[in-house]
């Protein structure tokens, strides 16, 4: 009893930290907004409040800052959750959202669209499409593979990923070095700087479709980590459940990378951070991962847009923060309760 209460409390605290992070993120930026103005503008949408703020602020808040904060939180939440889910179904603590090639596929799709002078919307759409396509190819190849299905998936994931990476490299080679190449390079480093309302809405649909089953199936993820034979003898159709989890995780990963570009480390580091906070039971792990991921990417994105006059790509920041943090997590002594 005490342990489950403790975990529920910790998840509650994470929720509060998330709310504080959102408020901080709203205030920061080229046009600082103070807390009073922030709540004034937000509440004026529901209650008739006489504006005591600059009209400009309202535009900044709704058209620039709100979509960006929303997207940062969502992408952080989705990449982390996908990481935790993949770690479960592949029985492998080192699994990350790009394990089945979703990121390499998205990178290829984005580069391909940029090469063909696609619009911002086309780039996102193409990234999303190729991301899903890559995972479908990986899955079909793994079905033909002999022996262990999990190993087959991971290996074909590595192979197809590297094929698409080669494709991306080729596109970079032939791209126009004055405008296309920098655009591709910048996309690959990951950024939320182009966040718009339409993008949030585009990503939101697959994200919700993916997150809901992951939340509902989180108890079964525990069983899947025990392996196929044990799952079956405990009454769980592991093949079926695994497929649903892979489809859901792929959807949220693809939706994330197609709007944010390549943001590494989040999907590996955050689930492990959440494991340290609430333990390995997926009942608590999934909510804790969702909240921690959102908090982490929100804070990192604040650094990205506020530290220098030009934005620092998110992928660079998550690697700088993520790698040492992961080293800390794996070298820290296990508390023995």
């Amino acid at each position, binding site marked *: 009893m005490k*342990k489950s209460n403790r975990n529920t409390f910790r998840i509650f605290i994470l929720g509060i930290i998330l709310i504080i992070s959102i408020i901080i993120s709203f205030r920061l930026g080229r046009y600082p907004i103070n807390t009073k103005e922030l709540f004034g503008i937000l509440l004026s949408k529901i209650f008739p409040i006489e504006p005591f703020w600059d009209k400009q602020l309202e535009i900044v808040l709704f058209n620039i800052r709100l979509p960006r904060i929303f997207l940062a939180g969502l992408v952080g939440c989705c990449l982390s959750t996908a990481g935790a889910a993949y*770690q479960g179904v592949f*029985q*492998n*603590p080192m699994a990350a959202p790009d394990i089945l090639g979703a990121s390499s596929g998205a990178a290829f799709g984005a580069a391909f669209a940029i090469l063909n002078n696609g619009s911002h919307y086309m780039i996102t759409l193409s990234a999303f499409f190729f991301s899903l396509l890559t995972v479908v190819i990986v899955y079909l190849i793994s079905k033909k593979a002999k022996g262990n299905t999990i190993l087959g998936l991971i290996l074909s994931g590595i192979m197809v990923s590297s094929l698409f990476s080669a494709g991306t490299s080729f596109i970079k080679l032939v791209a126009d070095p004055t405008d296309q190449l920098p655009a591709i390079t910048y996309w690959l480093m990951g950024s939320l700087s182009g966040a718009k309302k339409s993008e949030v809405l585009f990503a939101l649909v697959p994200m919700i479709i993916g997150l809901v089953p992951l939340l*509902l*199936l*989180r*108890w*079964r993820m*525990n*069983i899947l*980590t*025990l392996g196929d*034979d*044990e799952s*079956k*003898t*405990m*009454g*769980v*159709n592991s093949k079926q*459940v695994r497929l649903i989890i892979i489809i859901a995780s792929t959807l949220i990963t693809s939706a994330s990378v197609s709007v944010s570009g390549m943001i590494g480390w989040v999907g590996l580091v955050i689930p492990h951070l959440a*494991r340290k906070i609430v*333990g*390995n*039971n997926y*009942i608590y792990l999934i909510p804790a991962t969702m909240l921690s991921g959102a908090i982490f990417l929100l804070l990192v994105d604040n650094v990205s847009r506020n530290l220098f006059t030009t934005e620092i790509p998110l992928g660079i920041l998550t690697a700088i923060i993520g790698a040492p943090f992961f080293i800390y997590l794996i070298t820290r002594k296990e508390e*023995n*309760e």
Partner: protein
Amino acid sequence: MSIEVSNLSFSYGNMHVLDNINFTIQGNQFLSVLGPNGAGKSTLFRCILGLLNGYDGQIKINGIECKNLKIKEIAKLIAYIPQSHYPPFNYSVFDMVLMGTTVQISSFSSPGKRQIALANAALERLGIEHLRNRGYAQISGGERQLVLLARALVQEAKILILDEPTANLDFGNQILVLTQIKSLVKEGYTVIQSTHNPDQTFYFSDTIMAMKNGKVIAYGVPSEIYTEDLIKALYGVSVKIQSLCHDKYRVSIPKNILGLEL
């Protein structure tokens, strides 16, 4: 409660692993399957558990052909206790036991009050409630085996299949685990275990099945079939069997110890 296996054969490609196996278990009893490595014990278990379907012959659980049962239905009848192992993530003992209740709840839900109560009762029943909040990876091998046994109990299946439950355990833990299993049989469970320890089998089990090269070479009550010939046939070792404590316990002594030829 019954398991009826008739004319069961199974092969991996050209390799015959099980060859025309026939036996019936009626009511609660403790069946020990003896046999050298590679005799087909694990394959037999995997067929009964519904993990292997490509077999010839019939396996009937309570009169229903195993192939016609869904995974969930088999799990309600039979619980499986693997050799103690380390899962990739270190769950608490309580969570590990609670996982056994999964078959009772619908796909999209989590264990509720009834399941939690069951898990607590199972921990208490096996005397390991003090391990409740410990990490499964941080307890001893014997304790892990008891945790897996508790996990099987909360599954509420009346048939338990154990894969070498005493392998890698120290002597004290072997006796502890076997005593617990024996008391479960008294409470109405049917238990099938594979083992490499004939002496303990003689005392603890009601029936012995001896397998070699995918065939059953002996089946019956221990006092009748636990003989020097059987040990020689199974393991290729000549032994002298010594009866102790009014034939409650029999010990196989390899003949070379007695100065005779093996």
